[in-house]
């Protein structure tokens, strides 16, 4: 129920928004594996995420069912320690793609001529299931897709997005770049310049899609669109801000992994160290588009 004080009753804000916890309400989950995938076509990345989300939902259901039939206490605590153990962080560099958000799909989408114009720039155009509006992904941009179960960490969707912003700000800080949040979701250097965009999809508490941080992205691609539906704003990158052309996704990943781990209070490990078979199956899928190895796991 909305509870407005008598003096606030006529203001424009509709409800008092509860603040997000300053720390993850339930940290100490198993280490979070990550994998870096380069040159990934956007649609393939989307299919991979959907596969991983469905897998997480299935495995969680199996755990819950097992618990419900009344396993003994040692079994139950073993099951609890499995929570979050199928989380995965995909770090991706896409081939050039313009993507639109969920609300701009189908009838609300851009015109055929506009899609053609974007394709002529050498990019594909894809309608995505994430939140947010049109944006660009391509080489030089660190795209992170955390496939996380929000249930065990007890984080609301709103606070999850705020934690993603914090992780980006922590990454920028490691480069000595001061970044911030504004009233517009995403991470900004000031009111005008945006350095990272956010667009998330949540299915039964499992997150997919995520964030896009510009390391040394070709920013000209952003000038061709009204990114995220906000006109008069500008997109920038770490490389541009620091005047250092040697910055790229590979050099930013260690800082991002550290920033993400700090904010989500989790240690991050390369997927190949945790689950070699899954790592190979994911890589093979990305190369060939063939799910068969993944399905066997």
């Amino acid at each position: 129920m909305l509870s407005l004080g008598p003096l606030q009753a006529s203001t424009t804000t509709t409800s008092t928004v509860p603040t997000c916890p300053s720390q993850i309400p339930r940290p100490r989950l198993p280490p979070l594996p990550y994998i870096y995938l380069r040159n990934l076509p956007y649609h393939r990345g989307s299919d991979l995420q959907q596969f991983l989300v469905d897998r997480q939902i299935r495995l969680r259901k199996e755990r819950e069912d097992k618990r419900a039939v009344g396993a003994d206490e040692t079994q139950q605590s073993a099951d609890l320690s499995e929570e979050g153990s199928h989380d995965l962080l995909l770090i991706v560099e896409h081939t050039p793609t313009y993507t639109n958000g969920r609300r701009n799909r189908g009838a609300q989408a851009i015109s055929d001529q506009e899609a053609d114009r974007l394709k002529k720039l050498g990019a594909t155009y894809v309608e995505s299931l994430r939140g947010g509006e049109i944006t660009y992904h391509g080489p030089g941009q660190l795209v992170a897709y955390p496939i996380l179960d929000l249930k065990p960490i007890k984080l609301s969707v709103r606070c999850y997005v705020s934690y993603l912003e914090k992780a980006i700000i922590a990454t920028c800080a490691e480069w000595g770049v001061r970044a911030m949040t504004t009233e517009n979701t995403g991470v900004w250097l000031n009111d005008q310049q945006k350095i990272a965009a956010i667009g998330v999809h949540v299915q039964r508490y499992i997150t997919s899609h995520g964030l896009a941080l510009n390391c040394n992205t070709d920013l000209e691609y952003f000038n061709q669109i009204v990114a995220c539906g906000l006109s008069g704003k500008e997109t920038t990158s770490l490389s541009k801000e620091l005047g250092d052309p040697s910055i790229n996704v590979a050099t930013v990943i260690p800082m991002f992994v550290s920033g993400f781990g700090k904010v989500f209070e989790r240690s991050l490990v390369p997927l190949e160290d945790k689950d070699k078979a899954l790592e190979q199956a994911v890589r093979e899928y990305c190369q060939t588009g063939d799910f068969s190895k993944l399905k066997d796991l």
Partner: protein
Amino acid sequence: MSLSALSARLFPTIRSQAVARMAAPASFARFYATKKYTAEHEWILIDNGVGTIGITDHAQSALGEIVFAELAELKDVEKGDTIGSVESVKAASDIYAPISGKVIEVNEKLNDEPALLNDAPETDGWLCKIELSSEDEIKDLLDEEAYKQFCEEAH
């Protein structure tokens, strides 16, 4: 419809009994609407074989300011199917059918006023109506007490 559903909840003994007697004198229709919940933070108000569906107050507060509602299509759905989504803070959260049946109406008002989902999630901000194909599934849903407990454990 949502208003009459609401008043049925407020005056279960007086008004809807009278309505039920007038409207369906020959049937053994339930005398008052039943409100149930799901673990996905949806509510469903079942009245005369039709379930009105929405997101709970707890859900709207966890989502933040809702800027867009993707409404269900008018078609047959199975329990658990995705029936649209709501978008807040750049995050699209899927909505699931709490029950099988046929989507017979959607709340078109949400196209222009998605904020109704924040301001009145359990009344004017309803999402859609499903004509139930199996009343059997109702027993799998949570009652108010169980849902409250679920929320306390989850957050």
